[in-house]
């Protein structure tokens, strides 16, 4: 940092000269307030647009002139709630599947020593660098073929989308969980083994309970990323009643941006709120996950 004076708390301190205050704290507040305007203006704008009964893009430019819930009510006339339902089903199932499969794999890598263990871990590290969405053409062709054999696994099926997302379950999360599993002392397993517990019992009743925080983080990350995933959902889910919110909201503004604006804004607000709440609620875990290793004890 530029200055290293013993951080004077302003409370109870004799008056600080304005220049000094500016150098110490003032500029920080100026930066913060400027950034707040930058960060919050679009959010306030979309809330205003959602509450504006005019519902067009032009009409939304008068911020908070009139407030009504017409746009929200209008959502009932659309398939919006079907899309929300689809998204919740897809994202929740994917999150649960991801946690179950990822945790099991992390358990195996953390607790058992087997041939090819290091090689498999490295392979996972490499695979996860290549996002699945780059192979969307092949995903499309594969689902086309699978659908001929069993339609629930084909194009336009929610189950198929979930399966595709679960394809990435191991790659991204195994490492995050593996590290966490390693922090649980193996003495616990040993003791349980001596008492006659099977590996299944150790896994389900001891380990999984101790690693709950990381399970929650992985579930959340998986939920949020599935929630916002667009390209695979767009390709696979063809019929309107199967769309996710991402595909549906896009369809509203891609064709007639001006006319559907209020409706879109209302949908956007509703869609953002659960993610926002989850995010704020679990903030410290997410920040911890992001900066793991860079923060000192």
């Amino acid at each position, binding site marked *: 940092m530029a200055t290293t004076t013993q951080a004077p708390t302003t409370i109870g301190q004799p008056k600080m000269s304005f220049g000094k205050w500016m150098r110490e704290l003032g500029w920080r507040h100026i930066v913060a307030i400027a950034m707040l305007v930058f960060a919050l203006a679009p959010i306030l704008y979309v809330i205003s647009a959602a509450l504006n009964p005019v519902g067009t893009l032009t009409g939304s*430019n008068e911020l908070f002139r009139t407030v009504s819930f017409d746009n929200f009510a209008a959502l009932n006339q659309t398939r919006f709630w079907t899309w929300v339902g689809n998204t919740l089903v897809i994202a929740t199932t994917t999150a649960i599947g991801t946690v179950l499969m990822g945790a099991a794999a992390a358990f195996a890598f953390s607790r058992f020593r087997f041939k090819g263990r290091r090689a498999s871990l490295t392979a996972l590290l490499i695979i996860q*660098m290549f996002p*699945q969405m780059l192979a969307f053409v092949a995903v499309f062709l594969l689902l086309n073929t699978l659908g001929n054999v069993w339609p629930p696994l084909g194009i336009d099926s929610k189950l198929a989308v979930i399966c595709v997302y679960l394809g990435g379950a191991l790659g991204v999360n195994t490492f995050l969980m593996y590290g966490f599993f390693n922090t649980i002392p193996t003495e616990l397993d040993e003791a349980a083994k001596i008492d006659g517990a099977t590996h299944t019992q150790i896994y389900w009743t001891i380990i999984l309970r101790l690693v709950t925080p990381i399970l929650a983080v992985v579930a959340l990350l998986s939920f949020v990323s599935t929630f916002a995933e667009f390209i695979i959902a767009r390709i696979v889910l063809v019929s309107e009643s199967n769309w996710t919110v991402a595909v549906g909201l896009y369809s509203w503004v891609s064709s007639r941006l001006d006319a559907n604006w209020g409706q879109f804004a209302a949908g956007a607000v509703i869609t953002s709120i659960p993610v926002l709440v989850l995010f704020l609620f679990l903030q410290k875990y997410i920040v911890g996950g992001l900066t793991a290793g860079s*923060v000192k004890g």
Partner: protein
Amino acid sequence: MSSPSTLEKPRTSRPRPQSHATNFGKGFLVKLALMAAVNAFGIFIILAALQQDSMGILWVMVGLLVAANWVFFARRTLALKYVFPGLVFLLIFQLFTMGYTLYVSFTNYGQGHNSTKDQAITALLQQNEVRLPDSPAYPLAVVQQGGELGFAVLEDDTVEVGTAEDPLSVVDDAVVTDGAITEVPGWDILDRQAIIADQQAVVDLRVSIDEDPESGSIRTTDGRTGYVYTSTLEWDPEADTMTNTETGVVYTPNDEGQFEAEDGSKLNVGWRVTVGLENYTEAFTNPTLAGYFYQITAWTFVQAFLSVALTFLLGLLVAIAMNKPGMRGQKVYRSLLILPYAIPGFISALIFAGLFNTRFGAINQILLGGAEIPWLTDPFLAKFTILFVNLWLGYPYMFLITTGALQALPGDVMEAAKIDGAGPLRTWRSITLPLLLVSTAPLLISSFAFNFNNFTLIYMLTGGGPSFSPTTSLGHTDILISMVYKISGISGGEPTNYGLASALSIMIFVIVGVISAIAFRQTRKLEEVN
């Protein structure tokens, strides 16, 4: 399964009175029930695949089933029991699709080359059908069964029914009144109105007379009378040629998966063949494509690099400003400043698409007093807008990680620098920044990889536009991944070209892989130095 089959003896398998693989306890029964369900499902898929002649799926399923049973009932597969479920999904939906992308990139899969040669021949014979000049008219009824249309045809005194899938076959007990079919067991006969409502489907429907495509098919134009149509093409399996029976022109298969006559004319339906590296060279040599390809590649790099650099700098500035113990309102500032990160990316992108709209958007209307600045439709401004929006989306992430890194900076090094007489700027440039970069570099690399493929932002904000020229859908703000999407033709409305799209996908794989590898090696060097 390429996974390890032999395990080091896990410590759990020291001699015990009973192994749990043979222990008929509660757990074993649960496993038995689950495996029974898995096997039942597997066999169901195998049978379905057999019916559809999908031998690939059939053998993969057989392999998976055998592996599953071995893994869960053998004793020496303890670790695999835990990895297997995730591994199955990984193998099918990630590794296979990556491999298949590679395979498709070497073929001409796409418009006009969508199927196997046999299917192409059948399609050619069907498409080139004409009504036989002297063919008799058959009384016909349009029938329906579970939503599938079919024809019931009266030939002499027998009634035969067939659909697009199944050729004509005799049905017993059909009722014929006054030369018209009035009842067919198991089928509903469509009345006049229903036929009119579904007119196009009825006219398009062709029902093969028998399994051999050369026998022709029954078609109708009015829903009452059927005529025999046969192909003007004749397929000779021995010589592997197609002959046009009207003109006598003989077509032979060429290297590109099409039937070609000696004069160079080709039949319009082809099949998939391997074309080697053609798709890869196409991007560089095709005169209309190459220019766009270079521009898009350059913009992809610029966009990814600038996005990371700008968000990092802004995030860092905010982190430094907030990094003051005892600052008032710090918590509130922090919570509000990371809000953009918590909003789903597709929503943010769409909001900004509205804000930057040339005629109605708030930026032009409120901030600039009605100036019609083409933020999203001018090549330069559109690029600027994308970077601007990405700055909004991305700085909170950088703010979070740099805050963590700042707090972890060792205080004694700063102290030492101060004692050595280094000014604030010098300390910053020589100590703070390098240390920060060491701890954040891996995250910056993954951020670069993410922005390199930030499809959602581009697609929702500008759709890749403005277009390079009226004749192409590719545009100035397209990045490689959105170019792949457009070229693949999956979205409909444009000819599909899976081969070229896959080749471009593979190139992105390689670029991202090489950059990650180099960058990770560099960061390891940095770590060693410090």
